C-alpha cells in the first residue's frame, strides 16, 4: 500500500504513572486535511511528537505509505511544534535555509525554496531581520515556512492557527488546503473547532489519550439521536407530549427542541405543531462540531467517574 497514507497504529505512551496515550489509532489519508481535536493534555502533542520521532512510543508504530516510519523517512515530514521553535536571534532567511538544509536540501534548492515560501506567506520582506523582531503573527508565518521549505511529503502541525489574525488564518488555511490538494496527508491540531469544521475532511477527537471519535465531519454531525427545532408562536407548553417516540428536550418561548427516537415520525411532529397555529421554522438540528465535541468529552468523563 503505497498511497502515502500516514497511519498511527496503537500507540501507547506513559510518563511514569500517567498514561498519556492508550492504543491511539487513526490514519490520515494522502490528500486529506485531518483535524485533531481534544482538550489540553488529552495527548495531541504527545501523538505528534511520537510521529516526529522526537519522543519514543512505549508500543505501537507509525507508518507512512505502508512502511514503518524511520529516522530517514521522517525527514519527509514538515513539522510545526506547538510552542514555536526558531532561533530568536537568527535572521529569517538564514534560519529557513539552515532548516531546509537540515532536511537534506542542497544550499541552492534551499535558497530557492525559502524565497518561494516567504513570498507565498508574505514574509519575504523580513528575510534579513532577526526572528525576535517580528510580530507574533509573522513569526508564525515563518514557522509555517520552516515546516514547508523542504517540500515535505507529510505535514504535521501542532496548533498552527493559535494566535493568528483573520487574514493570517486565511493564508494558513489556503496553504494547508493546497498542500492537501497536492496529495499529501496533512494533520493539524486546533481548539478552533469552527475552523476545523470548515476546513477538514475528517476529524479525530482524542480524550485522555484515547481516540473517542473519528470520521468525516458530516458523518459525525449526523450521528446520534435525530433532533428537530420547531418555532410555533401559538404553541403552548406540552403541545408535543404524546407524539410517539418524541421527547421535548428544550422549550424556550415559541422555540421547542425535540429529540426523536429511531423510527419516530417527524411529520407527526410537524402536524402537531401546525395544529397549534402557524409554524415559522421547522428544521433538523444537527450538532456543530463544538457541541459534538462537548458531548463526547463530557460523556466520557461521566463514564470515567462512574
Amino acid at each position: 500500500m503505497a498511497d502515502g497514507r500516514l497511519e498511527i497504529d496503537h500507540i501507547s505512551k506513559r510518563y511514569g504513572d500517567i498514561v498519556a496515550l492508550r492504543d491511539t489509532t487513526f490514519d490520515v489519508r494522502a490528500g486529506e486535511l485531518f483535524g485533531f481535536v481534544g482538550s489540553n493534555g488529552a495527548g495531541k502533542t504527545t501523538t505528534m511528537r511520537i510521529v516526529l520521532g522526537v519522543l519514543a512510543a512505549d508500543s505501537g508504530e507509525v507508518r507512512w505509505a505502508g512502511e514503518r516510519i524511520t529516522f530517514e523517512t521522517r525527514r519527509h515530514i514538515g513539522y510545526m511544534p506547538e510552542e514555536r521553535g526558531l532561533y530568536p536571534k537568527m535572521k529569517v532567511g538564514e534560519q529557513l535555509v539552515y532548516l531546509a538544509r537540515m532536511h537534506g536540501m542542497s544550499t541552492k534548492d534551499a535558497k530557492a525554496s525559502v524565497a518561494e515560501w516567504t513570498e507565498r506567506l508574505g514574509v519575504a520582506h523580513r528575510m534579513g531581520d532577526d526572528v525576535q523582531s517580528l510580530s507574533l503573527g509573522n513569526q508564525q508565518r515563518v514557522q509555517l515556512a520552516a515546516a514547508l521549505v523542504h517540500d515535505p511529503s507529510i505535514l504535521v502541525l501542532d496548533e498552527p492557527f493559535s494566535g493568528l489574525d483573520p487574514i493570517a488564518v486565511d493564508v494558513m488555511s489556503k496553504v494547508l488546503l493546497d498542500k492537501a490538494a497536492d496529495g499529501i496527508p496533512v494533520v493539524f491540531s486546533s481548539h478552533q473547532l469552527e475552523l476545523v469544521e470548515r476546513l477538514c475532511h475528517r476529524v479525530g477527537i482524542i480524550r485522555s489519550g484515547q481516540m473517542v471519535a473519528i470520521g468525516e465531519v458530516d458523518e459525525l454531525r449526523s450521528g446520534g439521536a435525530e433532533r428537530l427545532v420547531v418555532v410555533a408562536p401559538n404553541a403552548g407548553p406540552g403541545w408535543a407530549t404524546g407524539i410517539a417516540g418524541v421527547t421535548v428536550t428544550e422549550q424556550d418561548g415559541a422555540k421547542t427542541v425535540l429529540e426523536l427516537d429511531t423510527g419516530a415520525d417527524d411529520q407527526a411532529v410537524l402536524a402537531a405543531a401546525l395544529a397549534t397555529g402557524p409554524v415559522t421554522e421547522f428544521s433538523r438540528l444537527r450538532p456543530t462540531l463544538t457541541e459534538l465535541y462537548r458531548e463526547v468529552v463530557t460523556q466520557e468523563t461521566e463514564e470515567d467517574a462512574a
Partner: protein
Amino acid sequence: MSTPNVELGPWTAVGLVANREVMVKVRSKAFIITTIATLVLLVGFALVMKFVGDGGSDATVGVTKQTEALAAPLKATAGQIGTSVDTKTVDESAGRSQVSDGSLDALVVSDGADGKLTVVVKKDLDGSLRDALTVLAGQVALNKEIVDLGGDPAEVQSSVGQATVDVQPLEEPYPYQQEQLVLGIIAGILIYMSLLLNGQMVATGVVEEKSSRVVELLLSTIRPWQLMVGKVLGIGFVGLVQMVVIGGVGVAAALALDVLSIPASAAIGTVVWLVVWYLLGFVMYSLAFAALGALVSRQEDVGGVTAPALMFVIVGYVIGISVLPSEPDNTLAEILSIIPLFAPTLMPMRLAMGGVPVWEAVVSVGLVLALIPVLVWLAARIYANAVMRSGARVKLKDALRQA
C-alpha cells in the same frame, strides 16, 4: 507528489550545526570586542615591556665634577645587584634643580673621601638605588683602606671579582625565569577565560535551543548527539582560532619588539601547549556544560546548573594564579595539574613556567584523552534524555537512568 532527496549524512548534519555556531559566534559583537580587546592588551603589554626595558636604566644619577670618578664604579655596582643606572655629569646647582624636577633620581655631591657618600634626592632614595650606593660607599671606603695599606685597589677588585661560589644543590634546582612566570600567568589567564567563556557559551546555546523550542524542530531531523557534537565543535573551533590568533599575535609582538630574553622556541612552545590544553580542556568541559545545560529550560538557571563543573575550572585557576608565581614547584599544584579535572588550567601554566618533567606532561594529557570518550558517552546520554524535557529542571539522576 514529489519525494525530494532527503539524504543527510550524520557528519554532514554535525557540520551544518557547527557551521551555524561559527557564523553566529563570529558575527556576535561580544566575540569581536573581546578578541580585539585581548589583542590590544597583549600588544600594549609587549609595548610597555619594550618601553620599560628600552629606557635602559632603572635610574639616572647625576655626578658633579668632583664625583665624576664614581660614575663607572656606580654603574658596575648597580649591574652586580641587578639594577641599571645611567649617570650624567652636571653642575651641582643644575643637578639639584634637576633632582627637584625629577629628571634626575639622585645627585652624588661628595665622593666619600671622608668615608661618606652624600646624595641629594627629592624625597627619598629608591630601594635598589640605595643598595647600589651603599655598596659603592663600602667599596670607596675599602679602596681607601687598601691604598692606605699600600695595596692596589684595582688588583684587589679583580681578584675579588674572580672569586666564585661553588654551589652544590641537594635537590635539582627549579629552572625557571621571571619572564616564564609572566608567560605562565598570561597562559593561565587566557586558558581560564576561554574555557569559562566558551564553555558557558555551549551551555547557554543548549538552553537557548531548549527554551526557544527550536530543539524540537531540529531533533525531528537530526540525532541529539549530532546537535550536541556540532555545537561543541563549532564553538570550540572559533575559540581555537581565537586562541591561536591571540597567542600568535602575542608571541609575534614580543619577538618583533624583542622583549623576550627567553628563546623564541620556548615562547612558541608555550603557545603550542596552550592550544593543546585549550582543546583538551574545552572538549572536556564543554561536554559537561552541554549535558548540564540540557537539564534546565531557562537561561536564568544556566548559572546554577553549570556551577559544579565551573568550580573545577575556577579552583584550578585560582590555585595556579595564587600559588605558582611564588612557588612554581608547589606539590599541591603539581599533583592537581595531573588530575584531568584541574589539568586544563594548571598544566599550561606550569608548562609555560618551565621545569615540568616530561612524564607529568605526558600523563596529564593521557588521562584527559582517556576521560574524553567516557564524557562523550555520558554527556550524549544525559543530553538526549534531558533536552526534550522542558519545564522544571531535570534531575541528573533521571537523565542518566532513562534509556
